[in-house]
């Protein structure tokens, strides 16, 4: 830790780290210095002058260097010649700060008066009104009158779309540059900037499409006025009318903490609806940022085509029915199938749902035929052993530490992790990036390896070998191995880009072994805080699905079962050849995803869903489930942090929580009575049945503690409108390595998937069309288009140019794509983007349409 210095703020003595700014330091003792341009997460610029304070230093005798003392023995203070900006001055030992003197007050009055000369009288219609730093600081420090002529007020354009998601009101901007600095420093998307000077200065977008960044919504949170607003919330409601509900992002493995602002709305027929999604501070998870995906994707919860009643197939068509009929039918059919019944689940539902699901099969039907409908990446069993240790915080990684990212494009797959990894690299951590193609992380990498197609596993093996021998080989792999073994802390991320499930398993185990290699001091990189493995799961609760035992061979808590059931692939083939007759699909669409070819020879198919998906269309019974916004539950993020979310809106139609539906079916089959609440499923089921969760309950997960920087309180001007976390920081479960040594993994052999003449891999895009995101109109212009990326040389050979329509046949499906020759693909590899998932290196045929 950095050295502490002692300073005095308004007479209060405090110790702070060297390097802190006066504003941030004063905040620690609740002395608020008003700011506009300063933000605790951004570098200081000193642009607005709102933070002017008096700063004095103890005087020293020039000759002797001794402090000069007053008569009473206290040090004599040199207050300098004027006011200084508290946001740019760093603390120094013995520093005195005065924030309440008349000169300071007058300076504040002047700054406010000056800012208001260009600011419109818009508060009544401004989306920021009510949570606006300028409003609040004007009330607190403004003079109430102005020497300025009303007629010479600046009049600027009020309706400037900076792209489809963010709107700018030029009049309201106070030129603090928080937005542009956020985009430069934090998001690394410098797509907006200042144009012109003085009163004519304006924010312009430099990208096409406008404001092209996954983080744009965050600028509306930190903009100290209502200059930037989101297309989603514009004029939606006044902030004080909204009811905040704590929740967790339903997408992505990072588990971003969010607050849903809800309001009862006449437009929506009197329903309570989600008006906006805001970040909720959790410095351990997402700090105060969320991606636009998280911010704007919520519309599926309120979509008009949600299932509202159970459906049952009668005379070949699905007709509405009552719950009792539907549940009885399902219970009878499942019971008739007994241990041959199979269950497939998505990785979106809560831990409670997933636990109930496996219990229905394992206890109710004595069947282990359960799996995730779409398994992309293996290794839950590995992270359970050597996953990132509890108590870790990516924010603590920096100089001396190493972060490894293998086969993942974090920017698209887990943007919050991308942000945190990038920031750690900027703090001095060495970043090792191994991928088959360039990604957004490359530019921050200390060691960058673009391995040849199909050699991900071989490369990691090589790395492991080099680490184990540690012969100081001077080739690149040798150097990386040395850096990893010698690092203070190591966190390794692995993904599944261009890999098959079996390959990711090898990857996970090889990396696990790599982390276990001990350095000369006998330390390994597992089981210690800020060390360990992280799988870049495809969904918000893939981790929970592993933990809850949605696996044919692993019961809850990774206990192996004697007779493993069928895996998803075996279930799909069983559906086709008639060996699987009865199938229960929860929160997944295997037909729509091309995994299951219709209902095959199934005798009975029950689907539990939000929408009438392709799979639901061919089902015998469709059970309407509630979305995450309508109920409570827990998700476990990729760092194994179990987090709670709360009900925000009323249930749509007759829909019920997944766990409840399953327990009601179970009850009809002779299992226990359904629980009354999700918290009881957690307490009586999960905490009792999953050893890793035994020390948790809804209360312990909901614990909070004071977080720094202090964001979301009354003083919105300091950190922006991210919400304060009052509903839980979550609880991480301990990996096996934390409580004792774990054995090295036996790494199986795999044959890399064979590649054709021009190998093709599918790459992830944050806005890939899907069941949920498609229902968010605001994101539709930004949706990833089906694209084929080619290297110039390959494009020449195939005589394809940018913009050509091409047909790529992959696994028997033909995809209509538009070709792009733009440097995203390395030579000898084509990338397909914006299409649904396809595993491994694909043997694809590329033709011009």
């Amino acid at each position, binding site marked *: 830790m950095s050295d502490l210095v002692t300073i005095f703020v308004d007479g209060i003595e405090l110790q702070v780290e060297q390097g802190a700014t006066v504003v941030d330091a004063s905040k620690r003792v609740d002395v608020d210095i008003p700011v506009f341009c300063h933000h605790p997460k951004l570098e200081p610029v000193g642009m607005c002058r709102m933070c002017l304070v008096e700063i004095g230093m103890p005087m020293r005798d020039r000759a002797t260097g001794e402090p000069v003392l007053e008569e009473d023995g206290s040090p004599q203070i040199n207050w300098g010649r004027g006011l200084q900006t508290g946001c740019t001055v760093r603390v120094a030992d013995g520093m005195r700060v005065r924030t309440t003197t008349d000169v300071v007050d007058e300076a504040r009055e002047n700054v406010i008066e000056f800012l208001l000369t260009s600011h*419109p009288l818009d508060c009544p*219609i401004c989306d920021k*009104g009510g949570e606006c730093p300028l409003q609040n600081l004007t009330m607190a420090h403004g003079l109430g009158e102005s020497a300025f002529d*009303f007629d010479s007020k600046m009049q600027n354009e009020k*309706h400037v779309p900076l792209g489809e998601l963010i709107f700018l009101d030029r009049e309201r901007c106070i030129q603090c540059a928080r937005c542009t600095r956020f985009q430069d420093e934090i998001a690394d998307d410098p797509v907006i900037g200042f144009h012109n000077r003085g009163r004519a200065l304006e924010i312009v977008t430099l990208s096409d499409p406008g404001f092209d960044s996954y983080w744009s919504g965050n600028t509306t949170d930190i903009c100290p006025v209502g200059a930037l607003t989101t297309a989603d919330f514009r*004029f939606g409601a006044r902030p004080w*009318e909204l009811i905040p509900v704590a929740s967790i992002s339903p997408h992505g493995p990072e588990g971003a903490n969010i607050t849903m602002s809800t309001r009862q709305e*006449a437009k929506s027929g009197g329903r309570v609806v989600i008006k906006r999604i805001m970040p909720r501070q959790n410095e351990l998870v997402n700090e105060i940022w969320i991606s636009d995906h998280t911010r704007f994707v919520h519309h599926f919860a309120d979509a008009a085509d949600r299932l509202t009643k159970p459906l049952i197939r009668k005379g070949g068509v699905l007709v509405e029915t009552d719950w009792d009929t539907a549940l009885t039918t399902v219970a009878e059919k499942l019971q008739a199938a007994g241990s041959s019944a199979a269950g497939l689940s998505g990785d979106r539902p809560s831990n409670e749902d997933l636990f109930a699901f496996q219990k229905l099969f394992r206890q109710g039907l004595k069947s282990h035929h359960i799996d995730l409908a779409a398994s992309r990446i293996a290794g839950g069993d590995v992270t359970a052993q050597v996953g990132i240790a509890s108590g870790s915080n990516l924010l603590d990684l920096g100089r001396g530490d190493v972060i490894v990212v293998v086969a993942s494009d974090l920017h698209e797959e887990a943007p919050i992790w991308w942000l945190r990894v990038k920031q750690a690299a900027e703090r001095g951590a060495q970043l090792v990036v191994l991928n088959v193609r360039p990604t957004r992380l490359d530019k921050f990498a200390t060691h960058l390896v673009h391995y040849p197609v199909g050699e991900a596993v071989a490369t990691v093996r090589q790395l492991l070998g080099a680490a184990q021998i540690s012969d100081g080989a001077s080739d690149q792999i040798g150097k990386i191995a040395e850096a990893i073994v010698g690092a203070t802390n190591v966190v390794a991320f692995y993904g599944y880009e261009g890999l098959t499930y079996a390959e990711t398993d090898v990857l996970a185990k090889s990396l696990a072994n790599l982390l276990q290699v001990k350095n000369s001091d006998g330390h390994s990189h597992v089981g210690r805080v800020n060390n360990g493995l992280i799988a870049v799961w495809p969904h918000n609760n893939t981790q929970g699905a592993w933990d809850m035992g949605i696996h044919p061979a692993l019961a809850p808590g990774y206990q192996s079962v004697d007779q493993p059931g069928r895996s998803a692939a075996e279930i799909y083939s069983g559906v086709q050849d008639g060996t699987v007759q009865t199938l229960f699909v929860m929160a997944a669409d295997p037909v729509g995803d091309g995994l299951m070819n219709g209902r095959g020879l199934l005798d009975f198919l029950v689907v539990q869903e939000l929408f009438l998906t392709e799979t639901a269309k061919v089902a015998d019974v469709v059970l309407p489930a509630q979305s995450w916004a309508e109920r409570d539950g827990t998700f476990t993020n990729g760092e194994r942090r179990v987090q709670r979310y709360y009900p925000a809106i009323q249930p749509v139609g007759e829909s019920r929580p997944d766990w409840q539906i399953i327990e009601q079916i179970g009850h009809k089959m002779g299992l226990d009575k359904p629980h009354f609440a999700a918290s009881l499923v957690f307490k009586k089921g999960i905490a009792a049945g999953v050893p890793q969760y035994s020390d948790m309950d809804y209360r312990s997960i909901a614990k909070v503690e004071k977080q720094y920087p202090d964001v979301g309180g009354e003083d919105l001007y300091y950190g922006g409108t991210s919400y304060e976390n009052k509903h839980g920081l979550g609880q991480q479960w301990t990996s096996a390595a934390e409580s004792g040594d774990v054995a090295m993994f036996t790494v199986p052999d795999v044959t890399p998937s064979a590649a054709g003449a021009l190998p093709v891999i599918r790459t992830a895009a944050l806005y890939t069309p899907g069941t949920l995101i498609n229902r968010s109109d605001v994101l539709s212009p930004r949706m990833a288009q089906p694209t084929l990326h080619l290297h110039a040389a390959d494009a020449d050979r195939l005589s394809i140019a940018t913009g050509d329509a091409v047909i790529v046949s992959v696994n028997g499906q033909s995809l209509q794509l538009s070709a792009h020759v733009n440097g995203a693909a390395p030579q000898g590899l084509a990338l397909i983007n914006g299409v649904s998932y396809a595993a491994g290196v694909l043997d694809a045929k590329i033709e011009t349409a």
Partner: protein
Amino acid sequence: MIDGIVELLRGMGITLSHLFKKPVTYQYPEEKRPVRYRFKGRHELKRYDNGLEKCIGCSLCAAACPADAIFVEASENTDAERFSPGERYASTYEINMLRCIFCGFCEDACPTEAIVLEDKYELSFYDRASAIYTKEMLIVPVPEGGQDTPQITEPGMFDRSIPDMENPK
């Protein structure tokens, strides 16, 4: 005894004299008494002379209302479909007259003088739902020479919600 009879007669005399005075009673509802200038009766939502609605859907009246009687929902104006000056208008505006205590705080809060408590006071209902006055019931008719809303307007003509202020004298 005599005293008592005198008092009795005096009382009856007063009663008798009133028989010949002009009565103060109004024969409500046939006959209505005009209200005072500052009377606070049922609200009206006002319009500008050109017919545009003064209300900009800011919800400040709802925030000020001590009885929580007002509900406002805003939407965005465009030049092709303009209800009020500026970018925001009230797409839903409701006052629950059963809740309203006719305090006039909403009037005070309104930045555009859109909501005004006028002289109508006949507010009785057979059920609770009909006590909720919607925007259509509250808004005044389009003044002569004005146009009904939504209007199609020139771009740049009405881009500010709040009427321009004058310098303090």
